[in-house]
């Protein structure tokens, strides 16, 4: 059995760690590329959301590499995510590229179900080994997030953005290859040392919160590398959600009990008093939070036609007004133009800079 999974940013590092330690035979899809998009768009429903199309492209490319089984997360509504697998299977079957689909369905996920699913993939396996594999994958997720967080901080500050990207790439590659926790600590130490040696500009820097539909936030290919673009424009970006949080929420259904998004949902309540699927409520709540913390702006990303984010976007003007924080929403899919995105980002950065300047003058 040769198993593949859909890409989402750096998730592959975590998945590889997990699979290898469980003794599963992983076929990593090639990194998401233009070709992935083309394949996905060609065969996916026209109005399906962008993540479904990209996933489908991943599956088709993995199939070419010999994958015969797909492992992915599921869902029980209200959003489309929970029915991705069934539609994708239908499409793959029709193309004569049938693959087995193993779907982890929250929130009914329990340790027992995780084990049953794994057992049906690898045969008998002890609890201890499963536990160890999951724990190790989790360390990797945390390590990846540590690196990413640091890079977000340094991007506006460094004079040598290319060096920084190189350090990041190196660190991620080494985390991917690391085989125990000690090694990972070492990698993080090296990375920090490298970063410390970088000469840095002094601030102040514009601070922007990055919110929206999770796949689009976490997959640079889907968000047209927005974090890096903002960083290069001199903006310090703070993400509303990290990989480890997603893994916990979707794959382990809260098994690991990391801090959830409840506090953010509470912040959203005066504006959006219900969950709306996906991360719509978190988008609103996080924007409130960034507003409270005096950020200069919020950039909001969503796939074209994304329902929860359309609800959130409808509501953001009120948050923006109450907290005096400008927001900028992008709906993204295969047809988005890079030039347009860059122009809008630059205009937004100018706007934030002007507002800051105005405020500074008023305070004098």
């Amino acid at each position, binding site marked *: 059995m040769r198993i593949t999974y859909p890409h989402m940013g750096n998730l592959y590092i975590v998945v590889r760690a997990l699979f290898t330690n469980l003794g599963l035979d992983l076929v990593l899809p090639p990194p998401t590329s233009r070709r992935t998009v083309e394949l996905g768009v060609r065969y996916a*429903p*026209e*109005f*399906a*959301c962008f993540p479904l199309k990209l996933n489908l492209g991943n599956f088709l490319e993995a199939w070419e590499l010999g994958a015969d089984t797909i492992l992915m997360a*599921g869902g*029980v*509504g*209200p*959003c*489309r995510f*929970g*029915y991705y*697998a*069934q*539609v994708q*299977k*239908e499409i793959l079957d*029709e193309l004569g590229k049938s693959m087995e689909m193993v779907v982890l369905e929250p929130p009914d996920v329990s340790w027992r179900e995780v084990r049953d699913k794994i057992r049906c993939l690898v045969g008998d396996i002890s609890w201890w080994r499963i536990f160890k594999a999951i724990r190790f994958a989790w360390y990797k997720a945390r390590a990846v997030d540590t690196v990413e967080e640091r890079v977000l901080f340094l991007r506006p500050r460094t004079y040598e953005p290319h060096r920084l990207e190189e350090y990041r790439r190196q660190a991620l590659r080494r985390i991917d290859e690391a085989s125990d926790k000690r090694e990972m600590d070492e990698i993080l130490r090296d990375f920090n040392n490298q970063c410390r040696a970088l000469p840095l500009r002094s601030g102040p820097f514009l601070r922007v919160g990055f919110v929206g539909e999770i796949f689009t936030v976490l997959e640079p290919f889907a968000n047209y590398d927005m974090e890096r673009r903002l960083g290069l424009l001199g903006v310090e970006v703070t993400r509303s959600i990290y990989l480890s949080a997603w893994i916990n929420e979707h794959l382990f259904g809260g098994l690991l009990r990391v801090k959830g998004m409840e506090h953010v949902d509470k912040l959203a309540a005066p*504006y*959006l*008093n*219900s*969950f*709306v*699927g*996906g991360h*719509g409520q978190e988008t609103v709540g996080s924007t409130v939070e960034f507003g409270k913390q005096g950020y200069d702006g919020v950039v909001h990303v969503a796939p*074209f*036609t*994304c*329902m*929860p984010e*359309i*609800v*959130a*976007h*409808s*509501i953001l*003007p*009120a948050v923006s007004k109450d907290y005096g924080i400008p927001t900028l929403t992008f*709906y993204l899919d295969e047809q988005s133009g890079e030039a347009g995105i860059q122009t809008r980002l630059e205009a937004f950065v100018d706007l934030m800079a002007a507002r800051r300047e105005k405020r500074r003058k008023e305070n004098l």
Partner: protein
Amino acid sequence: MIKVGIPRALLFYFYYPLWRAFFTELDIQVVVSPETNKRILDAGLRTALGEACLPVKLFFGHVLELSGKVDYLFVPRLISVEHKEYICPKFMGLSDMLRVRLANLPPIIDTALDVSGRRGLDWSHFFEKVGSIFTRDRHLIKRAYCSALEADKNFRRLLKSGLLPPEAMDAADGISEAAATSVASPGFLKIGLLGHPYNLYDSYISMNLIGKMRQMGASVVTPASVSDDLIDNQTKRLPKRLFWTLGKQMIGSALTFFENEKLDGVIYLTSFGCGPESLVGELVKRWAKHRGNPPFMMLTIDEHTGEAGLVTRLEAFIEMIKRRKKNEDHVPSYGQPVHCC
């Protein structure tokens, strides 16, 4: 007399009799927005988010139409009306979107209906809460609830008899028996029409699709007349339980229609950019293609859809069916399946 406004949009077409009976029993005057017209549509387009789907935009227009004329707006938060099912994320944040985007609205009654939630808020809780806004008399609320259920039952019965929701509402009021007979009179063709109720039965938005089909000699069957049991049975065959109530109705009805040999064709009307239908419609389209029978056509509408284009496609589809029907009299029925979508 207190006035409560109900927008003639979204699930109005499913729940109006239920809601109206409840309020009427409480001695509250129910005001419904007029049928969709250009003014209402334009108001919706002006105020709703450009990226929203047409039905949501239209809801904004209907709300504006009522605003200023009523004491309360009734926009229940329909999270889940069936166990472990949802309608659509946009329904869940509807009242919040309205509050943010429209100024000077009367108070909105947006009590939640969420039968799947942890607190299992079903219709009886729902009406208890809504009723308590207006009266402390729990007996009265109870009575209003009972008469609401009664009205709803009557409405459902009329639907199952083949009346379309607007006709069933009229018939329940004893307004128009004529409408009822027009359905019963057999058309030359019989066509299954799939789509969310707020698209099918809003004749402005659908560009009077049903009327046009009838004029072309087709009688129309919609999901409203397919029984819940049948839908449940049909959708049991799905690889995974579908968690959208409307989506389930579409798939269950589609499968029923596909199996119905008396149907000459199936049309599926969807909104541009509709999330659930992007997947549900895709599945239906694929199954139709596999079966090759009956002929199937998908129509997608939004605010830019021109009437001429729609008519052309409809005419072509109906012509094709008529030709095919004629041929069937001459050639064996295993002739080429015809496709159009």
